[in-house]
């Protein structure tokens, strides 16, 4: 359906994407006791840290190998070793998740090779899991980095096993899912008597909560012991096309069959997910709460379609989010008049129901939104300038959302999340309905003499 076209010209104006390394760090934070470690200059981490703190309003335990001029020239192996050493002493992380940056990749660091020798040499690192993902800033964006980190974790932390637990289900969660999204899917899976293992699970770590005491690692997430059991599950449910590769890798390693759900927003898409859960659970019926949620979604669709029908939407997001929201809007009769995304890597973009997806910046999205008569803009918080200039309502979705609290509480998947999304869009659209004026119809105003001269 959609044709992918590149950014025009040399200049990027108002970037749409966040970096891959940031995405990888975010994925690592879905593992209990993890500390993400960006292998790069100090600033790489500082910027990512600030962006994530602004988005989550949470302390983010993000560290850096603090590459300097000399280590950049001579090699950063020592920086990595020293960083792990320090992290172990200060915070005793269960996992150190390393993500490379443009600096170390340009230099050509063989981090994987160096980690092998490091593990041999530093037996005292044995009780800390170390995972490495290659996430240069010059390839893709947040979603790609997230996917690479998940793949790296599957590769490093999941053993092949012959043991099977048919009622255990893996949920590989894509970068487009918020803490509330993950929680919604976990609830849905549990409603059918199945036991999910989520990787990565940001719902206990980045949901915003207060703990007794301070820890310098991820405050919750998938325990390493659960990750080690992924191979025992009856099925892997992948949410987000970007994680299809991770699912395939898990299957190659363990033989656990994979189902990929390229979106779980939208009535029929969730129906497909629920049908799968019913098959996995071996039941022909669903719990009353699930049925109620579905009928409430149907009702929301009926109420919302008056506002979504014919609505022209401009959409900018990472591929999985773009597809999920765009396809759902199209099902509701809205028209995705223009779309921008961040990565060439995800084949789901070709299925976005619009003519063209520009792998481009917000500046390009703004130009296209103006040219196509968009009535609503959906993108992350950086879209607020464009929305103001175009005088369009902005529905915030994606990363970063730094000017609203509770980004992690917004749920747009499952029956309930889809209902909330449809109402959100309908409300944004209603806010734009102009008050009718005579000039809209080409009518002249009433004669002057009719007017009341207020004393």
């Amino acid at each position, binding site marked *: 359906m959609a044709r992918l076209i590149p950014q025009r010209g040399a200049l990027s104006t108002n970037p749409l994407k966040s970096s891959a390394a940031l995405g990888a760090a975010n994925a690592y934070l879905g593992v209990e006791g993890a500390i993400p470690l960006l292998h790069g200059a100090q600033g790489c981490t500082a910027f990512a840290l600030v962006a994530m703190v602004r988005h989550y309003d949470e302390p983010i335990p993000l560290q850096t190998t603090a590459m300097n001029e000399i280590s950049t020239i001579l090699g950063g192996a020592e920086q990595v070793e020293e960083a792990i050493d320090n992290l172990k002493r200060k915070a005793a992380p269960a996992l150190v998740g390393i993500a490379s940056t443009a600096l170390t990749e340009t230099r050509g660091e063989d981090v994987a090779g160096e980690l092998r020798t490091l593990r041999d040499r530093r037996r005292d690192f044995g009780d800390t899991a170390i995972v490495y993902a290659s996430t240069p800033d010059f390839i893709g964006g947040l979603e790609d980095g997230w996917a690479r980190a998940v793949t790296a974790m599957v590769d490093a932390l999941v053993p092949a096993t012959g043991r099977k637990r048919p009622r255990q289900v893996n949920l590989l969660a894509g970068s487009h899912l918020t803490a509330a999204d993950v929680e919604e899917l976990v609830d849905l899976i549990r409603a059918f008597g199945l036991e999910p293992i989520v990787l990565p699970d940001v719902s206990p770590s980045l949901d915003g909560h207060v703990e007794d005491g301070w820890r310098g690692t991820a405050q919750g997430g998938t325990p390493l012991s659960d990750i080690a059991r992924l191979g025992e599950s009856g099925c892997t449910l992948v949410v987000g096309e970007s994680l299809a590769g991770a699912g395939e890798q898990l299957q190659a390693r363990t033989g656990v069959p994979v189902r990929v*759900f390229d979106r779980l927003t939208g009535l029929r*898409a969730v129906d497909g997910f629920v049908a799968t859960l019913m098959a996995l659970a071996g039941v022909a019926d669903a719990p009353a709460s699930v049925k109620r949620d579905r009928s409430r979604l149907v009702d929301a669709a009926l109420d919302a379609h008056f506002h979504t029908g014919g609505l022209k939407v401009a959409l900018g997001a990472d591929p999985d989010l773009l597809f999920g929201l765009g396809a759902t809007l199209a099902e509701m009769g809205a028209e995705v008049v223009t779309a921008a995304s961040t990565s060439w890597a995800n084949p789901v973009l070709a299925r976005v129901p619009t003519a063209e997806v520009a792998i481009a910046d917000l500046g390009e999205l703004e130009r296209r939104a103006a040219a196509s008569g968009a009535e609503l803009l959906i993108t992350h918080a950086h879209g607020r300038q464009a929305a103001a200039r175009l005088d369009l309502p902005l529905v915030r979705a994606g990363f970063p959302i730094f000017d609203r609290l509770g980004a992690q509480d917004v749920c747009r998947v499952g029956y309930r999340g889809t209902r909330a999304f449809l109402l959100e869009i309908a409300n944004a659209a209603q806010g734009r309905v102009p008050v009718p004026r005579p000039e809209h119809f080409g009518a002249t105003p009433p004669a002057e003499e*009719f*007017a*009341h001269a207020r004393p």
Partner: protein
Amino acid sequence: MSERLKAQVRDVLDEPACATNRAKAPGERTKGCGNSLVPGAAAGGCAFDGAKIALQPIVDAAHLVHGPLACEGNSWDNRGSASSGPELYRTSFTTDLGELDVVMGHGERKLYRAIRAVVETHRPPAVFVYSTCVSALVGDDLAAVCEAAAERHGLPVIPVDAPGFVGSKNLGNKLAGETLLDHVIGTVEPADPSPLDVNIVGEFNVAGELWQVKPLLDRLGIRILGSISGDARYRQVAMAHRAQVTMLVCAKALTNLARGLEERWGIPWFEGSFYGIEDTSAAIRTLAAMLVERGAPADLLDRAEALIAEEEARTWAALAPFRPRVEGKRVLLYTGGHKTWSVVAALQELGMEVVGTSVRKSTEGDKDRIKAIMGDDTHMFENMAPKDMYAALKAADADVLMSGGRSRFVALKAKTPWVDVNQEKHEAYAGYAGMVELVRHIDRAVNNPMWVDVRAPAPWDDGYAPAAATAPGLRVVNSDATDFEDC
């Protein structure tokens, strides 16, 4: 109810200009139409509601409701009559009578003070004061308070005596008409009356519908002098007696007003409609002809014909692209009066099939025209119970329901497209442009892809099939995998 009000109600119900009423036996003529006041089976609004609908579109006036909260508090800001200027009409004013006011008889004093507050704060050209059931029941003398306030403040304070219990919304419309005749019209003289001045009565500019028609009149040089009451200024209504012709748009509501304008000031009137292409053309033609009869330049007729020809051609051209999208769609119309047949013709012209139409508010003349348009009367019905309508829609006897807000949920719960054609709507469907808008909305409603989804069986229902071709994301990545059902 006061003797004065009683007499007035009797008078407006016995409408000599209404064919339906003339056809009744003499003793029945003062009883009004419809059976909307049946306990346990009533659905419409009350007389107060009707009076407010008719007068509130006077945008620069203050509208003050004298009664306990519900009458105004539960109903304000729920109608889409649009204004090109003043917004005072949208501000809600009520005396909000409390228990003590009622028991102690403080109502009149509170009303007097409330009027003073409105006048001092907003300086409106006039204040309309509406009675309600309670203020009428306890015997507050609305007329006396208004008179005293008018004298004190030096501006018109107009009593609108239409408490809810006297009857239906329709009756309230008529009482509002009487109020205008008795207190407003004829109190201001226009500076330069023109032979092309007309009154438009019964068009309330919902969603801007008056403005969809106004450009047509603008182009012919016809001026809307008395607008009753869409986007009206108070002074304009007060000048209505100097118009040359009155067009009565909402036929059943304000006939008494049109007749009153003729009896008191000799202004001839006709009934017309701006819904549908044919009717819009007929209305313009009649307006032009009557104006010429009253002394307007004769070339108006030719100019009107040229305008009609141009606009009709343009409208059909604009409608043509919709034909393949709406052709064959079956429409159930559930509305009243003129809206029915004048729209039917255009829908049929676009290949839509009208499978049923209600005639509950239609005159005998309307019914004859429906019969002529639809071939026979087998598709005409009076009222349809929600249960029956739901069953019909559920059985897919129609592809779309066009109705007022009350049957909206009957359609939606039966998962059937619905198009709003009554006064609470937010879309403007009048004139030629409005017809294109209406068809655009029908297209948008019936062709929304969500209908397929919401009607599809749930995963736990018989007949559930994953949406295969459209494939909302269900895919086995590796076909070598263990058969899914086994995993």
